[in-house]
């Protein structure tokens, strides 16, 4: 389409032109909504179907592409919860939280401290350490995994939860440190300097001034770490060998391997339970994110 300069004298042509533009805009908007809705359906249908299927009987799962169960049953949940091991799924949830809770907590603490050190202080070696932080961001874990395993074997940590969270407690996730440094750089130092003038030391300044200002960013660090740890599979696969210490991810894999003739409704029901904590946290945090942004970071 070429946009011609409207002839001011010819008012009729002008309005025709406008009408045409408006109609075009309306058609374009309709096309956009159609694409968005179709894509949205494609994105969410597998999840909606998963939830529906977890209430179906085993035979219906393979015959009904709709998501509403014809004869709703809790069999999948009841039988799936029992598992084929001596433990119930409650055990696997408990194990997962024994990894997730220390990992999220210590990540938040260590990443905040380290980011504060990088963003607010000058010290010998700072440039080199910060450069290594960036390098670590791009370093594929695949090269460090084997020696890490050997290290944990030598200190007797295999088949425990420690290898899964101790590196994070030492600010091992460069991404989070980097993210907090970026946030801190955007926050003016006025309030911190005022606190220092009033006699606060750097630790007090960190706890009472910086942490409250950084709260939205720290929450998103916790959030991402929570999601990633809940989803982590390779870590537990390498380090955890006894079934009584399995987190959910390993338990699900085990249930595919051991469930006779694939009792799919049990596996799908347990999959629904496995993603529930992440979904709940995501939808709760959505609101928190918006609040964090609209609170506008720095006031006063």
């Amino acid at each position, binding site marked *: 389409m070429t946009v011609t300069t409207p002839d001011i004298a010819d008012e009729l042509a002008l309005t025709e032109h406008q009408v045409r533009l408006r109609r075009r805009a309306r058609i374009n908007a309709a096309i956009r909504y159609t694409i968005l809705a179709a894509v949205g359906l494609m994105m969410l249908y597998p999840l909606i179907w998963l939830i529906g299927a977890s209430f179906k009987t085993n035979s219906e799962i393979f015959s009904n592409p709709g998501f509403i169960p014809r004869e709703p049953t809790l069999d999948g949940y009841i039988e799936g919860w029992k598992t084929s091991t001596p433990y119930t799924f409650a055990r696997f949830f408990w194990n997962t939280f024994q990894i997730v809770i220390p990992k999220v907590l210590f990540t938040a603490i260590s990443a905040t401290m*380290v980011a504060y050190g990088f963003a607010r202080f000058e*010290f010998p070696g700072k440039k080199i*350490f910060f450069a290594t932080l960036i390098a670590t961001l791009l370093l594929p874990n695949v090269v460090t995994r*084997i020696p890490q395993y*050997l290290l944990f074997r030598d200190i007797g940590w295999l088949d425990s939860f420690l290898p899964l969270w101790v590196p994070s407690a030492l600010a091992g996730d460069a991404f989070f440190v980097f993210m907090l440094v970026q946030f801190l750089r955007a926050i003016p130092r006025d309030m911190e300097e005022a606190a220092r003038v009033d006699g606060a030391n750097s630790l007090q300044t960190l706890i009472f001034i910086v942490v409250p200002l950084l709260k939205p960013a720290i929450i998103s660090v916790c959030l991402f770490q929570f999601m990633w740890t809940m989803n982590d599979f390779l870590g537990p696969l390498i380090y955890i060998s006894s079934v009584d210490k399995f987190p*959910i991810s390993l338990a699900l894999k085990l249930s595919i391997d051991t469930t006779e003739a694939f009792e799919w409704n049990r596996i799908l029901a347990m999959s629904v339970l496995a993603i529930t904590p992440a979904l709940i946290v995501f939808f709760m945090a959505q609101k928190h994110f918006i609040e964090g942004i609209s609170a506008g970071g720095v006031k006063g």
Partner: protein
Amino acid sequence: MGGESRYMGLAYVMPYVVGLLIFTAFPFLYSFYLSFTDYSLMSAPTWVGLDNYEKLFTRDRTFDKSLKVTLIYVFSTVPLKLAFALFIAVILNYRLKMINFFRTAYYVPSILGGSIAIAVLWRYIFADTGLVNMFIGVFGLEPVNWFGDPTNALFTITLLRCWQFGSAMVIFLAALQSIDKSLYEAAWIDGANQWQTFRNITLPLITPVIFFNMIMQTVQAFQEFNGPYIITEGGPLKSTYLLPLYIYEKAFKNFDMGYASAIAWVLFTIIMVLTLIAFWSSKKWVYYAGDKRS
């Protein structure tokens, strides 16, 4: 800041420095050393020089196959995912109602996509009598053998990762929203159509985030493990046997740590070389605002 020693900052970053040395720097160097050894955990590593690498490149058919599959996977998944993410971000960038709703809906798969639960779901969806084939059947088409055919099997994993386009899309959308609207008005007055506007204004201005997403997604795709491990178990005929699976099997099933380290270093080298090429070429195509070149 006054009153405290110049080592105060060092105290705050100390956890990171200790962690860096123990869990990153030392393992990084040690794995390089291990790649020149024969080490099966039963006895100390024995130095074998370039033997592992020589075997990898000349006598290891599995490695050839695995490397080829990995490259095909990465170079099909990353462009597809980024193109799709950008396409949706551009549509969302028009001032549409319900933008928040769509953004959330599209982001949900990214939150869950890495989980085993979703890999399990995928395994079901593409089963012979699974959801996808049921839908295909509705249109009277023959069911597709997703996991029996080598090309299809790899494609199911590509689809899973494209389904998680949400995080890349959010980054694109943020970049699109930061573009100065007056540029579009100027282009419109000059008579540019939508495609010209996109091609000559939008695209150059978002090259930094395209670059960022490209690097991040590529590094991630080279390390894909959960998808092929759970969904296809590397098969059929090793058509989804990506290098991380091979490394895992060599290291943690066969306990052949030396050989596994050598494969890991080949994978690392490929990622590093591609990253360097990307950084080097970025001077030619990535546009930074405030830069004199255009």
